[in-house]
């Protein structure tokens, strides 16, 4: 069976510079792979290329199909994206927002079918948003917003979920809640998750595998314990840290 995501010799040029510079890796079905790396390493650019938002060199396949040859709508049926700070229009209700996840299944001038409504209602129920369904997006708390965004992505029913810094706007408690939820969704819906994260300890806690990117290349990959090492972090982040039981603790120089 083909990998959920296969990236081969991927290069992305932005502003005359190879922001992603010849990256190859594969993600198997049901895996959670998190991309880590210093600012400007190319993590977000890589995700955007996988989502079909950038032109690229090399090959990206989702479920064995090359992204380049798929129509935009077909990509959207296979890849759902949660952006770092999604625009959530004030005045739109949670229910209307989640229903937008069905966009790839509705014809250009058509309307949502009963099946689309059902899929979006089940995403609302799965993320425990029933009570908030009629609420205005503008009135939600950070954690509630994040759940609404995840519900929209879930309603999309795409097997591959891309998360760009999914919890950077949340406090420690809400962050944990959101990541546990994503992990639970991954297990029961059989999703494959590819995320980017800044917090290394949290990244290590939830990923089955980490890819450390630096200057557009993969410089280390493997289980969290193999990647989150003091020398690797010192070399690529220029940070002085102790790693204790998987926790990355900054220390003063």
């Amino acid at each position, binding site marked *: 069976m083909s990998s959920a995501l296969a990236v081969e010799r991927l290069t992305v040029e932005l502003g005359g510079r190879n922001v992603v510079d010849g990256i190859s890796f594969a993600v198997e079905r049901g895996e959670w792979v998190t991309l880590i790396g210093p600012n400007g390493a190319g993590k977000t650019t890589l995700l955007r290329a996988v989502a079909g938002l950038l032109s690229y060199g090399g090959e990206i396949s989702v479920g064995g199909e090359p992204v380049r040859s798929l129509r935009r709508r077909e990509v959207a049926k296979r890849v759902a994206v949660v952006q770092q700070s999604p625009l959530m229009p*004030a*005045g739109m209700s949670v229910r209307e927002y989640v229903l*937008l996840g069905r*966009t790839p299944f509705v014809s250009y*001038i058509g309307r949502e079918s009963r099946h689309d409504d059902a899929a979006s209602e089940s995403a609302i129920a799965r993320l425990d948003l029933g009570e908030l369904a009629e609420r205005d997006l503008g009135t939600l708390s950070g954690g509630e917003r994040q759940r609404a965004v995840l519900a929209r992505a879930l309603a999309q029913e795409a097997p591959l979920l891309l998360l760009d810094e999914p919890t950077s706007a949340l406090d420690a408690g809400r962050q944990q809640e959101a990541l546990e939820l994503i992990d639970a969704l991954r297990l029961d819906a059989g999703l494959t998750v590819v995320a980017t994260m800044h917090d290394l300890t949290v990244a290590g806690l939830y990923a089955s595998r980490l890819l450390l990117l630096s200057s557009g290349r993969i410089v280390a990959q493997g289980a969290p314990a193999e990647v989150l090492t003091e020398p690797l972090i010192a070399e690529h982040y220029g940070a002085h840290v102790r790693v204790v039981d998987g926790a990355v603790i900054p220390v003063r120089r």
Partner: protein
Amino acid sequence: MTSRLWIVAAAGFLVAAVITGVLVGPVHIGLGEVVRSFLSKLPFLDVHSNLSPAEDSIVWDIRFPRVVLGALVGAMLALAGASYQGVFRNPLADPYLLGVAAGAGLGATLAVVYLGGTYWLPPAAFVGGAVAVVIAYAIGRSTGRSSGGATLVLAGVTVAAFFTAVQTFIQQQHTDTLQQIYSWILGSLPSSDWTDVRTVLPYAAIATVGILLHRRLLDVLSVGDEEAATLGVHVGRVRLAVVVCATIGTAAAVAVAGLIGFVGIIVPHAIRLVAGPSYRLLLPLSVLVGAGFLVFADVIARTALAPQELPIGVVTAFFGAPFFAVVLRTSRRMLG
């Protein structure tokens, strides 16, 4: 309130506006008489009109075409305003403020002066309006995304100023048509008859159908270009299609009624306040409420200084400019 109720309420508003528009005037003709006269024109009904030939002509050749034309123009301006606001994700967008109306005005002036005749008015107005919106959008974008929505309006005002200058220059060169163009450019409906209605109708129909078909996608665009793309939408194509339709609608309105400002701001924002921002409901409501709004504005234009007439653009600006100031104040949240 459900969508259906809002539509019914908006349709009621339009009907009230049409009745007021037909009844108000220097010659008193009662509603009952108008209804009888209407029924008498239908086949197979044995109803006789009590109106004298002169009254009949006032109702059917003067007031009705003017009301219908006002409704069409108002519908187009409100719909175009709501559409521009959606595709540019900018609450301040309006056919007048974006310079589209001025571009259309220049196109129409060129058509009057060099091509002569009303047949070419709408297409020429469309070309002028399209050029204006492209330039305004290009200037607005070139200053960067971070500068906020006011930039697009500044760019539009710049374009409008330039196009108006060129238009005035051409107008002064051709003093033989000066009077005709001058009254038209201020925005007016007085000389309207059924010919004008027939001129606008096909363009209005294309614009309305084209835009309403995109109402679901305009909701998708409200989450941003990139997210809309990850939902499978070709953002550029949708934006182009909607801008073309909105510009056709604006051009048709400008070609027959001149420059009437602020309808595209007042109507969609008033609807958002009461019925919410979803374009699925906002766009059809804009058609109905925009139509009714302009018919009422025209009643004010006809009666405020009777027997003189105010240009209708003066009436809409009088109400619209203060309204715009309020929208500007409250739009920071929407501009993000």
